[in-house]
């Protein structure tokens, strides 16, 4: 078992190499979107914290040496940026869940996690971005993770006075509405790519095959009438509910609307970016090759690789432009037996075994490096790569595993966000709020608003 995760990641995606394109009814506009330089955002959290001495290189600028824990990033050193010095002390308040819980929920929200039986924190940067960009992609924003996460009372730091959900969700559409993540790579793949079936694009040249006569897509018709029925029912119900329950039912109505864009309607394009309903035949890039997806059962290590691959493919096919990935949960106690370890990651390794902790971090950064290379290999019609168009944030919930501080947060960026980010350097922003970085990255991807959470401005990444 120990080496099982080292299998070629392609094995996890049977058939990934076959020539694929998209059926007429599922014409996606992604080729056009790519030509327009669609930008993507990904926020990643590796839990359990990293001490700055294991994270911050000695020198800043382009001539810096990666730390021992970071050596697995060497292959992508010119595509990444080590960022140090940022503070997220706002998430430290109330000491939620031994700080790790507040740290995970606070990483992309940069807000104060409130104690109590229900979560109250803030909207996360990925959701701000997804709301602002409204790209019309099949999936407005994608939340992935590896573990179900702790539930109330299971001996962890949550329960009385600390909602467990702080430790298991990165994305928040509002202060009390975590956007729950998908943890099955297969289910995530199916959700994103179902309907993106392998039909070759018509070859260029004279005498193309005649287009098939339009047929009624009954499944789509029924999907639409089912959604119509429950929407009408929800409106009926909503009129009878009290004020706050009315608002609660808005979540339901929003969900109906979002799903409708994808499975309802009568054959209008539902995937890809661009103007909703802007149908017509669009040249299909041969780049989008989702294959048949990951296996249903994966080891933890394969699971990490599969989630990265799902995100890479979703970005490449332009089925989503905003994603988050939580590599475990707050106080994640996985045992990395593949690294020859027997102790649990959080309670034993991150608290007391710095060498073993270095190995875990190095492994995670190695997987991240493979992902960065994968994005770099995805060439888009304009000649740029998906990586060129992306802004990827990789961070951890706290600085310094044992002491749980929120200054000098461990952060690495990847991608160029269409030129707004100039990687290949170690950049230090002494004492600025982490929210400044989030705001800068989001603006690079298309956000126009001028502030986010406790931001005081932007940082220079160019």
């Amino acid at each position, binding site marked *: 078992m120990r080496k099982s995760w080292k299998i070629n990641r392609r094995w996890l995606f049977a058939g990934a190499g076959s020539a694929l394109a998209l059926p007429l009814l599922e014409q996606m506009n992604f080729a056009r979107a790519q030509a327009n330089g669609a930008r993507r955002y990904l926020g990643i959290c590796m839990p359990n914290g990293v001490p700055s001495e294991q994270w911050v290189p000695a020198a800043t600028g382009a001539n810096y040496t990666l730390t021992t824990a970071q050596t697995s990033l060497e292959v992508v050193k010119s595509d990444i940026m080590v960022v140090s010095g940022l503070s997220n002390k706002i998430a430290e308040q109330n*000491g939620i*869940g031994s700080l790790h819980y507040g740290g995970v929920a606070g990483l992309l929200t940069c807000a104060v996690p409130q104690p*109590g*039986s*229900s*979560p109250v924190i803030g909207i996360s940067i990925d959701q701000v971005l997804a709301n602002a960009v409204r790209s019309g992609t099949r999936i*407005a924003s994608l*939340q992935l993770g590896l573990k179900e*996460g*702790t*539930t*109330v*009372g*299971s*001996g962890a*730091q949550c*329960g*009385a006075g600390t909602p*467990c*959900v702080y430790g*298991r969700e990165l994305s928040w*559409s509002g202060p009390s509405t975590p*956007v*729950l*993540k998908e943890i099955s790579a297969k289910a995530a793949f199916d*959700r994103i790519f179902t309907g993106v079936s392998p039909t070759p694009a018509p070859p260029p040249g004279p005498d193309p095959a005649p287009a098939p006569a339009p047929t009624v897509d009954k499944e789509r*018709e*029924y999907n639409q*009438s*089912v959604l119509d*029925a*429950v929407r009408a*029912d929800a409106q*009926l*119900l909503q009129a*009878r*509910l*009290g*004020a*706050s*329950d009315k608002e*609660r*039912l808005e*979540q*339901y109505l929003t*969900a*109906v609307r*979002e*799903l409708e864009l994808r499975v309802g309607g009568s054959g209008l394009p539902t995937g890809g970016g661009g103007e909703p309903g802007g149908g017509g035949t669009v040249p299909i890039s041969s780049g989008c090759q989702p294959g048949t997806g990951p296996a249903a059962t994966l080891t933890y290590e394969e699971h990490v690789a599969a989630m990265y691959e799902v995100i890479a493919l979703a970005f490449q096919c332009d089925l989503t432009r905003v994603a988050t990935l939580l590599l475990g949960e707050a106080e994640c*106690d996985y045992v990395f037996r593949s690294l020859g370890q*027997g*102790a*649990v990651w959080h*309670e*034993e390794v991150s*608290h*007391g075994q710095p060498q073993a902790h270095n190995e875990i971090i190095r492994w995670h950064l190695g997987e991240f490096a493979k992902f960065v290379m994968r994005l770099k290999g995805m060439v888009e019609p304009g000649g740029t790569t998906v990586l060129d168009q992306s802004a990827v944030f990789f961070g951890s919930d706290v600085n310094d595993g*044992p*002491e*749980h501080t929120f200054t000098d947060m461990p952060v690495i960026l990847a991608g160029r966000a269409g030129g707004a980010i100039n990687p290949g350097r170690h950049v230090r922003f002494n004492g600025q709020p982490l929210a400044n970085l989030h705001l800068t990255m989001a603006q690079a991807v298309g956000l126009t608003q001028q502030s986010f959470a406790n931001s005081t401005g932007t940082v220079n990444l160019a």
Partner: protein
Amino acid sequence: MSAFAKRTGLLFPLLLAGCTSSLDTNGGRRPGGGQVAPGATTETPGSPGTPSASPLTPPGGMTSAVVTPPVVIGPPPVVPMTCTAPFDPGFTPLRRMSRGEYDNTVRDLLGDTTAPARAFPNDDSVIAANLTLPQLLFEKYFDAAKTLATDAWARQVAGTQTVSLWPCTPSATDLTCARQIVSSFATRAFRRPVPESDLAPYFAILSKAETLGDSLEVGTKQALRAVLLSPNFIYRPEFDVPETPDAIHQLNPFEIASRLSYFLWASMPDAGLFDLATQGTLSNPEVLRAQANRMLTDPRSVGFVEKFGAYWLGISGIENANPDPAIYPTWSEELRASMAAETRTFLGAFVHEPHPLRSSLDANFTFLDQRLSDHYGISLSGGTADPSGLTRVPLPQGVRMGLLGHASLLTMNSKATETAPVRRGKWVLGNLLCSAPPPPPPNIDTTEAPPMPGSGPQTARERLAIHRADPACAGCHAAMDPVGLGLENFDGLGRYRSVDSNNIPIDPSGMLPTGEAFTTFEELRSILKSDPRITTCAASSVLTYALARSTTESDSCLTTDLATKADTANSSLSDLLLGVIESPWFTFRRGEKLP
């Protein structure tokens, strides 16, 4: 159950027009039309804005210091004698079914035992406010509804469906029957009578099938799929009084039926409850008590045992335990399952049998299989077979008696390679005493200091001594550490040991912040057993679970009353459940107070 219902195999009798003569079709209360709670002694006046306020006068008398008596509509609630403040049932937001409830509900609604919600995102919370509806979950509902409806229909056609969907035999063209199927299914899925007019959106799907040239059977199946996605199925709506939304009022009988069934079964009401709700007798205290007792003996009460066990004791934590096989060679997934089964079955015995609540800490029996028998070194002989498949084993005086000797709780509160006294102590304080210490302050290194070079192995007690030395730690650790160290005779898998992993004899003695000293685990156990917080904590945990909201000051007279009964009358966990059910906290409601 009516003869018709029996014949058709329906859980609920069909609600034909005449069945609801004493109620309107919205279950006793029509939004916009005022409300009359069944059995009400106080009528709601017809004119909006002037409800007949019925200030609460509990039997024990009410202090005159009350400024604004809450508006109460309908029958006056009966609160415990000791309650002096005005009664307030609190506000519980619109409740969505949690994962476990969804699986149990589709089992009882459709006979589907595939547990589709296992693939839903983790939403395990007993607090209604936390059960939001993110996009991903809605899409899971959408997919599940399709599969559930398709599979149930296929079983019905094949004659293997255990819960019939067909009050009539459908055909490709019989619109009356198609509508009847949709209507009877919606009634059960929505857990209340549904007026035909509310079903128009679902009937529209039948027309859609005709438009598409499909048979009505295809359309009916699609309509059932839509019912399974309806907000009336996914949520359990409770309605307020339109003119005075924050008025306290008795729930309608169908709302009470659902509160009962989701409390005691984590599932939908059965035909018996539905019949009583239809008759309007469910709010009658004798009927309510009889039903609660019936439900507690029903196998579906395992729904309560599992869900409440996860909330109160956190026993689901054993699923995340990760013992290192290098140190614990006997650890296996099977052992994990045996541990979980012991605690689950033990908790079930406390729900189903009249053991005093406090004896859960030193009960003289437990439930073992061969694997756990070997693990503990306790013979199965002399035991009796239990329906769970485990053997009910009598325990002699000793460390294994009671919850604190359960391997599940001891293992999940250990590290992978060794015991975790602080975690164990925190669990006892938080889960059993509802006195969880606050989190450690920031900038504290919670790493245990490594032993001094050449100083030899340290005991857990020596390692934790630093907590007493540091004033920033001492306050909380003075409560946690002695309890955890008192459990050191149990290793990381909960096996009894007299020496630690370094062969140093274990000294479990200690003193609690209250000044009570103990020299053995069994002495600690008996101190904990008599801690007054044991019963108040259980009572408030039960109330939180039942009402799906955190408890407030205005609940304390109920929880205190229930705890006192548990202490003075040796009442059991099921008495506690009945006490909550019979209280107006359970059968009354108010909308959210407007600012």
